[in-house]
């Protein structure tokens, strides 16, 4: 008899524990009775998943802080249509499994209006289905993968960074013109990031144009075998599609094994301040002469009005954090999101913001145009080359634009306009 009593007690206790957990959850969850999740008359709640810890945290952890700082500035000036923006930043440690958990928490429990600037190709790929099934706007993904540009399959997802294929094509085009007849190799991340970049390079140089290619895994910091293989292949120019931590590893390992090559690094992992922070004293000689690409003005370009605006906001609202490419990126994304919110109007809905972004026509700090349209959900469509000279990373040459497919790489004039009054979109 007591066995049944004990079993009954166990069942009852389980039910009580779970029910109390549910009750706690019910009490704490922000029940906005408004029909649009995350939007009230006074507040817009958005969320993101970022690698605040882990192998990709170097540099990237500063992006969300900068975006938050920009939103604080906008909130202090009345918000958007009277609503203040609340930005919930969750750490996923660049681990796709954690991204699943935190994104579900943001959407199901915190009931955010949209996911902004989710960072990482491997991490964000896993939540595309979930976000689009739940019709959550997935805006301005912080990655250049082609996966975000699938308007038919994922109508709520929009990219922001230039696609890696575009970047590969532009880099290859530059090398063809300036480093002709030199052996070109590719060192890339072992996922869509590296694979798309390599595809872009091969689209312009041809499959035979790439002498050798190597990959690295984010979970394995030993890049010596890959660098050794590149050295053995006699690479004179090495294109690197790597996150900042692994760019630093590659440069350092190459110096250690005596591998001399012209490095051309993807904009994703080429920020000078981040890299010199990682390489420390060795940074100055190793980074000299490094080529890279960029779609935002150079951090060292003090004459640029956007840079001075962002630097000022950085001092006032971001605790004067060291101003580098990641901080600039965070401010730029924040600016674009506020632009989209203002354009969507007072009657803010999830469908509404998606349509607003598809209408496009946004101008901001970017030097290349956005490609947003009903049939194209990718972000920036062009890049400019950058070079590190005398400890400064500055842009040079024309702006190149191209597409994901077989279109040619063309030169274009910069699209950057002066920032609006007070630095808040009209």
């Amino acid at each position, binding site marked *: 008899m*007591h*066995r049944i*009593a*004990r*079993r009954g*007690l*166990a*069942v009852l*206790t*389980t*039910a009580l*524990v*779970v*029910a109390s*957990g*549910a009750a706690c*959850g*019910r009490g*704490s*969850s922000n029940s906005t009775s408004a029909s649009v999740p995350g939007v009230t008359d006074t507040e817009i709640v958005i969320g993101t998943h970022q690698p*605040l*810890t882990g192998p990709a945290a170097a540099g990237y*952890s500063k992006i969300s*802080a900068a975006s938050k700082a920009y939103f604080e500035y906008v909130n202090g000036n009345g918000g958007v249509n009277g609503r203040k923006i609340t930005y919930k930043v969750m*750490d996923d*440690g660049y*681990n*796709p*499994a*954690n991204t*699943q958990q935190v994104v*579900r*928490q943001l959407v*199901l*429990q915190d009931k955010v209006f949209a996911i902004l600037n989710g960072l990482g*190709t*491997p991490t964000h*790929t*896993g939540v*595309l*289905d*979930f976000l689009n*099934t739940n019709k959550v706007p997935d805006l301005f993904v912080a990655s250049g993968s082609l996966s975000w540009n699938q308007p038919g399959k994922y109508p709520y997802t929009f990219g922001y960074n230039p696609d890696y294929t575009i970047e590969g094509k532009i880099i290859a085009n530059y090398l063809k013109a300036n480093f002709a007849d030199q052996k070109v190799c590719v060192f890339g991340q*072992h*996922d*869509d990031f590296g694979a798309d970049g390599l595809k872009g390079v091969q689209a312009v140089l041809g499959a035979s144009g790439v002498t050798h290619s190597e990959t690295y*895994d*984010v*979970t*394995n910091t030993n890049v010596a075998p890959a660098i050794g293989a590149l050295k053995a292949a006699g690479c004179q120019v090495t294109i690197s599609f790597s996150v900042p931590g692994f760019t630093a590893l590659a440069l350092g390992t190459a110096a250690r094994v005596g591998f001399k090559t012209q490095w051309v690094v993807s904009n994703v992992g080429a920020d000078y301040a981040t890299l010199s922070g990682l390489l420390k004293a060795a940074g100055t000689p190793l980074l000299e002469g490094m080529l890279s690409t960029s779609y935002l003005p150079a951090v060292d370009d003090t004459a640029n009005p956007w840079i001075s605006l962002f630097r000022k906001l950085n001092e006032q609202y971001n605790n004067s954090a060291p101003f580098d490419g990641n901080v600039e990126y965070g401010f730029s994304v924040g600016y674009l999101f506020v632009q989209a919110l203002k354009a969507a109007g007072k009657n803010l809905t999830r469908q509404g913001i998606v349509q607003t972004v598809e209408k496009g026509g946004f101008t901001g700090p970017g030097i290349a145009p956005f490609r947003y349209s009903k049939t194209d959900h990718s972000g920036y469509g062009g890049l400019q080359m950058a070079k590190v000279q005398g400890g400064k990373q500055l842009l040079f040459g024309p702006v190149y634009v191209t597409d994901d497919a077989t279109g040619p790489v063309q030169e274009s004039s910069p699209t950057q306009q002066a920032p609006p009054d007070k630095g808040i979109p009209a």
Partner: protein
Amino acid sequence: MRRSTLLRHLGITALAALILFVLTYVLDPFRDYQLATAAAYLCAAAGLTVLTGLNGQLSLGHGALMAIGAYAVALSQNRFSAHGVTALWTLPVSLAAGVVTATVCGAVIGVAAARLRGPYLAGLTLVVAIAVPAMATVFGGVFHGDQGLSVWLPPVPAALGENFPFEQWQAWLALTAALLTMLLLANLIRSRFGRTLRAVRDNEVAARLAGISVARTQVLAFVVSAACAGLGGGMFAVLAQSVSPSAFTLTLSLNLLLAVVVGGLGSLAGAVWGSLLLVLLPYWTDALVGRLVLSPALHQRLAGNLPLAIFGLLLIVVMIAAPGGIQGLLNRAGRWVRGRRPGRPARRAEPFAQEAEPPAPAASRT
């Protein structure tokens, strides 16, 4: 006697199924998702508690077995989707494939480990825990490396209505798997095989003298727990709708072990407590850290590491104060309550009476 055990267990399972079914309606989708995650953990934890608690084999590699089950389900589901088969029966078939694959691997590991005891067995399973997820990177063509695979799932059956929450459907799937696992394991524990397991754990020499094949028993125990882990991993794939090696690190194996020990080693109810703790503890510590006003740097450090730290502290406290875990405490409380009432003393003791409290003269082993 045997028939009444089966009927009794079926009755309990039916009752639990009813309560949980109602619960999934009461809870909101996020809680349903947490419940589903706990159920997935329970599948693996139940198997592990039988292996470690009732058979004395310490396994640090159950995360790898879960990974094997998960990847098998992912590959199977994606193969179905590629051939355009979208019916609902693809899901049980894939899960069965996951269980079978994990069972086969469990058999291989079990045979390799049959001669090993204690720390040596733990070492072997540790190697498995680290090596197996790394295979996803080595055989990148099939397993897609660090990025992992997304798992295609059949949609919620139309009969349930347009707006049926997907999380509730996932909760139903996970709870079905968990209840099935619990039923089968409960029957196994009460059977002759369960007795054999415990005999081998308590005294190998005596068991051998009694005619029990020790190696066979240990391999079978490993196989059973591997099947459970494979089912748990398959459910992981269904819940997350993706698989990647970073979801099945060594931390997962250690967490499973922590869960069964803190919950109550050797008891299925303990596995339930442990699974709930695995899901709720990170959630509660996140909420706690969120309430505190901290500098961003400190917040960053705490957010990732506090759940682990608390779990570790909890383990130490449990080992010192209550070696029987949560279930042991509940049993003690239950006995204390019964002891207050006039009547005969407890007829039965729990499976771990030896460790939980000093030898009770009236205690008899089941």
